[in-house]
């Protein structure tokens, strides 16, 4: 088909070709000229913007750094103080526990949602509806105050005789309330991420596994989930980062995580801003470390797929300064 078209075109130079020729041949120069003109203009504009951005950033930083209340010596003295460090530790611990709990619940909910059982579908949807539809802060307060509503936790036949009985306040401590509140809430969000991931894997993969005699469980574990991870990891990274910061909400139930720790200190010393900066420095440090980790996990799960993982900043810098194996931007510009 294609060969026919070209062979008809070449010798004859019919009206259509002439039109095309007219349209293209003079314009090559014009396009080049325009591109050169535009590139000088856009270079000037580009530099103006860059300089403006740098000035704004420097201005903000200088205001912040040189402000009266900004006692950097105080920041320095608390940054690695044992109390703050243990707050950081507890923040990390809560993040890990809540994410693990949330992921387990999320995976279960996702499997319930894609199952063929109407009961399981409805149960999962109800859970997600409830936990996504109410504020996390309210949920935390709810778990914390559970004892006032259910003084005894019992297990047994619904509406019938109860077999096991616990004192609510001994089971649901503040710490327990925090972990439950964060984890149960996270489960609702993780379920959607898992479901999207599982459904992103072609159904043919499951069929091929079934045809080979693999059990549904093994097909899910060995074939579907590893491929779903490519879709699951990036939003989960976001969830981890917002969980890390979200743990600061549990300061409301007097858990001495990072925020509560610095709050307790500045309530005594009135060095509010420097201590909040201490907390921010730690939050920023931890989210940075997590983002770097996420980059490598994404790269791991994209094996076997020709999908480009975004460059890490290290690679970007290498490219800009021509340090990496690959050629820097310069080649692109020369080519134009």
């Amino acid at each position: 088909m294609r060969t026919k078209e070209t062979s008809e075109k070449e010798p004859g130079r019919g009206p259509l070709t002439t039109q095309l020729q007219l349209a293209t041949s003079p314009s090559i120069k014009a396009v080049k000229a325009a591109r050169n003109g535009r590139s000088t203009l856009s270079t000037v504009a580009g530099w103006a913007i860059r300089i403006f951005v740098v000035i704004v950033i420097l201005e903000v930083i200088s205001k912040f750094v040189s402000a009266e209340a900004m006692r950097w010596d105080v920041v320095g003295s608390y940054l690695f103080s044992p109390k703050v460090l243990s707050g950081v530790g507890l923040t990390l611990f809560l993040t890990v526990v809540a994410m693990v709990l949330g992921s387990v619940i999320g995976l279960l909910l996702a499997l319930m949602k894609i199952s063929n059982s109407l009961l399981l579908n409805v149960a999962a949807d109800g859970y997600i509806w409830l936990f996504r539809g109410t504020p996390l802060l309210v949920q935390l307060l709810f778990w914390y105050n559970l004892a006032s509503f259910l003084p005894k936790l019992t297990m047994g036949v619904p509406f019938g005789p109860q077999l096991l009985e616990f004192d609510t306040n001994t089971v649901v401590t503040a710490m327990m309330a925090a972990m439950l509140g964060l984890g149960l809430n996270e489960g609702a969000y993780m379920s959607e991420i898992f479901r999207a991931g599982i459904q992103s894997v072609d159904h043919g993969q499951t069929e091929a596994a079934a045809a080979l005699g693999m059990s549904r469980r093994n097909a899910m574990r060995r074939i579907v989930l590893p491929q779903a991870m490519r879709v699951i990891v990036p939003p989960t990274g976001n969830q981890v980062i917002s969980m890390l910061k979200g743990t600061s909400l549990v300061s409301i139930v007097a858990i001495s995580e990072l925020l509560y720790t610095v709050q307790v200190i500045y309530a005594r010393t009135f060095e509010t801003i420097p201590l909040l900066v201490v907390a921010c420095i730690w939050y920023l440090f931890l989210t940075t470390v997590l983002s770097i980790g996420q980059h490598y996990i994404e790269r791991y799960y994209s094996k076997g797929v020709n999908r480009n993982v975004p460059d890490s900043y290290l690679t970007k810098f290498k490219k800009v300064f021509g340090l990496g194996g690959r050629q820097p931007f310069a080649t692109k510009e020369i080519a134009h």
Partner: protein
Amino acid sequence: MNADSDPIIQIENLSKHYGKLQVLRGVELNVYPGEVVCIIGPSGSGKSTLLRCVNHLEKPDGGVVRLQGETVGVRESRGSLVELTPAELARQRVDIGMVFQSFNLFGHMTVLENIIEAPIQVLGTSRSKAQEHAMQLLEWVRLEGKENTYPRQLSGGQQQRAAIARALAMRPKVMLFDEPTSALDPETVGEVLSIMRRLANEGLTMMVVTHEIDFAREVADRVVFMDGGAIVEMGTPAEVLDRPKEDRTRQFLSRILKSNSAAQS
């Protein structure tokens, strides 16, 4: 051929609906050990559905499939049919290999990992034994040196040969092929067909849904022509492809030969 031995697959009065649409209408077919049966027919005639009922990827709503006399996917219990447990069904599927039009290789695994996965998981073969067998199979499908490659880095023809090797790794008694060359570039169709030809020569029992009439003529022991969910005509390649009795078969063949010759020029 082999009419004196017992059929390895018996398809008895198989029917299947999707909602109101009846896709299979009482299909009857016996396949004998070592036989190659090619199934041809227009799009939507139920060829894939028939094949997928053989390994119970689709549940028929009437009739049964038997593998060596044993009903596939269901058990006869006091005159009615009961679904097998997933584990029992999985055990039956080990004996029935399947090759798909779109290959369906596991994308996150290398070719070697694709082949050894099911033998290790399902058959409990040791990793070293499974790898040894996989390397033999790869050589057999002429993919030596590709064991550590990911599917997406292979051509369509190479992927389909890897998929055939993966199915063979379970040492199936029967192989089902659903249009194994339809998704391939014309240049790579031949390499897959030649592997299938060699499998037929090895005496493997095969059910092949295909539009490759030349392959059917050369390799099939029997050709089945399906239309509208039923078998219209069945016989040796010479009977069905060269001297079809039914008008519908004749029309289908003239259409497909026309489109094949158009594609070649």
